[in-house]
């Protein structure tokens, strides 16, 4: 009896082991399949327009872009220039945040860390509204400057406005990725260096910094790729004289001039992927041998003794706090205020009442708030569940050494580098219209397709958050687990992932955020059906008065804030206990 039970157990165990041994390969195959169906094939249908005209192969569209002084110098040149400035601004604004979050202890630190990702999900129209209210001629900033006797500034419709808005979106990204790396630095390495006589500065430079640099670099790379393909915010806050390449891609697609649109998109993508590839080669060369997992103790934000250096540090943090108030809190607070302001400037709840009323009396063909919230959450959770395993699998596979690793890795990052407008058109052609097969039309739409599309856009974040940390781990950790009989997956789940939990959680939060904020693919795949999301509702409620749209925007912020806090708490437990 007992022995039979034990036998059943043993065979179940061995079956489990067989699956386990294949799990990584399965995840890789699944990832490739998803990528093929919801990314490579759809995008190929658009890119084909750049190299086939009337069914004949041609290089003409791409050559005409590459030989056009206007496109090459004026547009691509300017696009790269603003992306570079935006990247510098995002890094400068993000790094102090990472330092404060990783190295100081204060009440609400974890919640604050969860909320740093909020700007990431703000619909661009909301950012535009918040920026006009904050940095506009009659905005908050000028009111403050006037109050303290300084001359007003004119920021809107300049390149500065674009750069600040891009920093608003991307500094949190830099901060998050760097914080995750900082929290994965092994304290014992620092202590060893200190006990061998290194000064705190020296220990930081030789031990901590090498582990942070890949994270800072990836934050910068991602920021550059994003801002290189930035679209609505550029025209909303800068104006057409500051148009980027994406503006022209949009314009050509609107006019159905596909060859030119595709040629521009191909060049844009090539630049982005080239840059990513270049970064990845650098990341591959920086392999550490850390043990991870025991972060250094944090200092209290309120020092025990007010020494001059402690005072200097606190003044610096205070100054940084003021900048954060202006750039991040200002625009978000302005939007909240706008949602509570009536037509004549008094406080009112009418815009929220509009949402309630629309919920209760809205027709089936109208966008209602509650379905928008539940759809967003469903897609977000679905994306998280699909993108995290995808991202981790790709991270594990690409931290191994093999020829062409960086190229494979760069291709896996492609979803970040392709214009959202192009992806949207590709999804429409490839999935919504489907393909004719055996006399029936095979189409892929609805919730599953949306989740798959979101996951494709989100998993690179998981990969990029996890890969540098995995690369920093001492390979012997896995080797010893394997020699004790663990499968590769078991070693990953029990040994490696807990050590890089900070990165996994940050990646998961990003995956969720990407899904919540995604617009282009969602409207295509959910076209005409009832699976609209919160950003779609914000867009729909835009009218002559901003109230309803900003109220919906605030609902979006509230729902996502709560989600992020929950994701981080849950994820923190996983990291803290070394497993579920």
């Amino acid at each position, binding site marked *: 009896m007992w022995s039979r039970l034990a036998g059943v157990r043993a065979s179940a165990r061995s079956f489990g082991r067989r699956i386990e041994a294949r*799990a990584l390969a399965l995840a890789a*195959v699944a990832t490739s399949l998803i990528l093929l169906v919801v990314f490579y094939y759809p995008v190929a249908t658009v890119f084909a327009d750049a190299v086939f005209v009337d069914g004949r192969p041609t290089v003409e569209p791409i050559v005409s872009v590459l030989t056009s002084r206007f496109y090459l110098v004026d547009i691509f040149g300017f696009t790269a220039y603003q992306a570079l400035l935006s990247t510098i601004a995002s890094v400068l604004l993000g790094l102090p945040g990472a330092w404060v979050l990783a190295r100081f202890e204060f009440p609400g630190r974890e919640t604050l860390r969860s909320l740093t990702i909020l700007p990431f999900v703000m619909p661009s129209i909301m950012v535009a509204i918040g920026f006009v209210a904050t940095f*506009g001629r009659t905005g908050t900033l000028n009111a403050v400057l006037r109050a303290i006797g300084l001359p007003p500034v004119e920021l809107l419709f300049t390149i500065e406005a674009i750069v600040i808005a891009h920093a608003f979106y991307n500094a949190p990204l830099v901060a998050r990725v760097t914080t995750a790396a900082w929290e994965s630095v092994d304290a014992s390495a620092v202590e060893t260096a200190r006990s061998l006589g290194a000064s705190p500065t020296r220990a930081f430079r030789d031990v901590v910094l090498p582990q942070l640099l890949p994270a800072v670099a990836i934050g910068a790379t991602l920021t550059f790729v994003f801002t290189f393909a930035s679209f609505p915010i550029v025209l909303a806050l800068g104006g057409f004289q500051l148009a980027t390449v994406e503006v022209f891609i949009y314009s050509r697609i*609107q006019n*159905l001039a596909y060859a030119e649109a595709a040629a521009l998109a191909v060049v844009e993508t090539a630049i982005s992927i080239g840059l990513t590839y270049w970064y990845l080669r650098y990341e591959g060369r920086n392999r550490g041998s850390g043990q991870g997992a025991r972060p250094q103790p944090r200092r209290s934000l309120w020092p025990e003794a007010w020494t001059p250096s402690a005072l200097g540090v606190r003044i610096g943090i205070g100054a940084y706090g003021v900048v954060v108030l202006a750039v991040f809190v200002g625009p978000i607070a302005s939007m909240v205020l706008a949602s509570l302001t009536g037509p004549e400037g008094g406080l009112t709840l009418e815009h929220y009442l509009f949402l309630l009323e629309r919920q209760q009396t809205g027709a089936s063909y109208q966008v209602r708030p509650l379905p928008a919230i539940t759809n967003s959450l469903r897609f977000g959770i679905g994306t998280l569940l699909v993108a995290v395993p995808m991202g981790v699998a790709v991270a594990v596979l690409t931290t191994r050494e093999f020829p062409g690793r960086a190229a494979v890795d760069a291709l896996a990052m492609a979803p970040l580098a392709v214009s959202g407008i192009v992806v949207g058109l590709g999804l429409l*052609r490839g999935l919504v219209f489907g393909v004719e097969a055996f006399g029936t*039309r*095979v189409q*892929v739409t609805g919730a599953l397709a949306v989740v*798959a599309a979101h996951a494709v856009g989100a998993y690179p974040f998981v990969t990029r958050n996890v890969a540098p940390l995995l690369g920093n781990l001492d390979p012997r950790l896995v080797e010893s687990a394997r020699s004790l009989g663990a499968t590769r997956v078991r070693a990953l789940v029990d040994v490696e992932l807990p050590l890089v939990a900070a990165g996994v959680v940050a990646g998961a939060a990003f995956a969720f955020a990407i899904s919540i904020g995604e617009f282009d693919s969602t409207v295509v795949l959910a076209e005409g059906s009832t699976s609209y999301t919160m950003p779609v509702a914000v867009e729909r409620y835009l009218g002559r008065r901003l109230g309803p749209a900003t109220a919906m925007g605030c609902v979006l912020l509230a729902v996502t804030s709560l989600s992020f806090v929950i994701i981080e708490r849950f994820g923190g437990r996983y990291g803290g206990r070394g497993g579920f």
Partner: protein
Amino acid sequence: MKRRTFVRTVGAGGIVGLAGCVGGGGGDGDSGSTADTATEADGDATGTTTGTPGSEPPELVVSTYGAFVDAPSTSPGPWLKETFESEFDATVTFATPDSEINYYIERALQGVDIESDVYVGLNVDMLIRIDERLDDGLFTAVDDIGGRGDVKEGLNFDPEGRIVPYDTSYVSIVYNETMSEDGDFVAPETFEELLEPEFEGDLLTQNPTGSATGKSFLLHTVDAKGPDGYLDYWEDLQANDVRVLSDWSTSYNAFLEEEAPMVVSYSTDQVYANREGQDLAKHQIRFLNDEGYAYPEGMSIFEGTDRPELAREFLEFMLRPDVQGEIAQRNVAFPATTTAELPGDFAEYAQAPPEAVTFTYDELRDNVSEWTQAWERQFASK
């Protein structure tokens, strides 16, 4: 320990399963039924999936832009649906694809069936795109529907008679007269005056590709300065710091926030301002050169409709005097017909220009892409 293994493996299996579904299209929206619910109809088929054929009113799918059915202020869609259904034996279903007419052009290009019967919200730009890209123009001729003769002659923009206008707007300058040192801002009266230094940085307009108002304003300058002169005019405008923003919402919000005293918008602006009890001094209308650019919207019937009779009835309904009056008020635009029934105070806040300007279909078909792209190149290269 063991539980975790189990969870992990199921997790991986789940993903493979999902990939399988996605890869195969898993019957999602591939029901082979008449209405392709996943993409076309409103998805929420309002529970009318059962019952015997014939016992149900026939369905008329009306495609339009989002704001026509879903604007936060008022939109004509719901009223039209309710009224039409109460008078005719039919169910109106709205479809609002995000890329509007391009969605249907794309479907036609890829050889995919179009499951819609009527399109409401066509403009001349869209028509030109249809004719440029498709050999057989997507829509049928509707010149002989009842009430067609009541449409104001100047609004017709399709020489082939496929499109019937149902309302029109005029694009003009809206300005805020409280915005100046002495609280008395006066907008310029002509295009020429707009270039004067006192109006530096005072005008907000929109991307011609991304917005109807921006496109109309650009075309108005082409009309005023000629195809050979409009680029020079824009060079001067740019030197005078005109702001070309992404879309109407963004620019109008900046105008409300008093970022600039003038914005390119619609001449019916005061209808809203009055409705919301706003200060009309902040919503003054100026027709440059005493002209406004006409922006008529039209409707038509898809060639592939399987309910041509019902579709014609819907178009005739849209032109009826009482319905024309309702559309005008709910869409805050001018009716397209001479016979519309409007309340007496409508004209008080809805201002029409002394002279309406517009280009013909033929003039635009040959030039509009070129005009727009030349403008883009000049304006964007700083």
